[in-house]
């Protein structure tokens, strides 16, 4: 029952990040925060299971792709790939300190942006111009917003006695 509830909480986290992202960008169209990416990275580090990374990346990516004009699979791939990289990093370096978590979020965000653009160039034949300033700013925002969000996610998905 406990596992079921925790899994339900995780599912709620995943869905709610996408919903929240949609609502936020409704009112702040220039927002550079990628909440779903933060959620996937959180699950990767919290669950320490690649299965969770894949599952969450797929669900989040599918939801994002479904609600945006882009082709399906682009966001899912990006999320899973970056989630796996974060998972591997987590197995090598203990990502439990604030600084390392911040660093992981920042680097993951940059890599996710680059991978996203690369996929668009390779698979959609788009001429992408690399907006370095925007990517860096997005990375900073994701990293700074990710830390308190990790804490909130922790509170939601983990029981009090843990």
């Amino acid at each position, binding site marked *: 029952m406990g596992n079921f509830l925790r899994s339900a909480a995780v599912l709620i986290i995943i869905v709610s990040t996408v919903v929240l*992202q949609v*609502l936020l960008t*409704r009112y702040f*169209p220039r927002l*550079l925060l990628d909440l779903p990416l933060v959620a996937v990275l959180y699950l990767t580090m919290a669950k320490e299971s690649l299965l969770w990374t894949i599952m969450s990346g797929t669900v989040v990516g599918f939801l994002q792709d479904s*609600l*945006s*004009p882009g082709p399906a699979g682009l966001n899912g791939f990006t999320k899973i790939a970056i989630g796996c990289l974060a998972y591997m990093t987590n197995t090598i370096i203990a990502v439990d300190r604030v600084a390392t978590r911040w660093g992981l979020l920042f680097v993951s965000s940059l890599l996710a942006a680059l991978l996203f653009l690369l996929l668009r160039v390779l698979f959609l034949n788009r001429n992408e111009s690399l907006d370095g300033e925007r990517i860096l700013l997005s990375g900073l925002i994701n990293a700074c917003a990710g830390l308190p969000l990790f804490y909130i996610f922790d509170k939601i998905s983990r029981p009090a006695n843990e």
Partner: protein
Amino acid sequence: MKQLFKTRVEWILLLVALIGHLVLLSTRMNESGQTPLLRAWTMDVAYPFLSQAVGSVTSVSNLWRNYIDLRRSREENGALKSQIEEYRRTITSYEEKIKEIGRLEVLSELDTSLSLPSVKARVIGGDPTQWYQSRILDKGAGDGIARDCPAINADGVVGRIVQVSRNTSVLQLITDVDSGVGVLLENSRAQGVLKGEGRHEAFIEYVGSSEKVVIGEKVLTSGLDQIYPKGLLVGYVLATKPAKQVFQKVDVTISANVLKLEEVLILKKESPS
């Protein structure tokens, strides 16, 4: 042991008091019309204390009453404040409604002037990624919306529908990097393709270098893309730059404020019949 001693003292005090009262009662029987001197003195001595005490009690009583009044006032104040807040909210919502009605009226006027089947839709969400310029609308296939239906508002073209479900649809804004709109310039009649830059601005590709483009010139839909009807306002020419070989790049500012989009008018596709 200590408890027992205390009880004895109390008993003694009680007896003394009772006896004292009996003595006083016994002396009253001999009273004349005047107040006995001892009693008068006692009264005089007692007066300042009593008056102070009464004053204190009155003060405390007043203080208490004031406190109660203050509390009531505070409560009343709080209630009034919340009432004012409620009124403010109501006024704000009325103001919003009035603005919305104004916008919808403009859309309705546009609707009748266009004489095309259309449906009004409300923006219910933004883009779930940070890479596209799109909006989620509250109308879908159930309302007659299909893919590639153009969307406009009172200021001009805003985009086209790219995803449709029964109750909702995704609107790709003309500022999206993947968007392309067939356009022509009002005066020079030069044609090209308007591409989004991912922000509020866009640019026109494939405008010949020999074309004389005037800054501030209106950019209209050409209708050649088979999506947007001809003659709809898209924006104004901002600047021109020489581009590759025979073409020039024309920067355009979009007339519709796509960043603050709330309602749009979706032009339905006319059936072949």
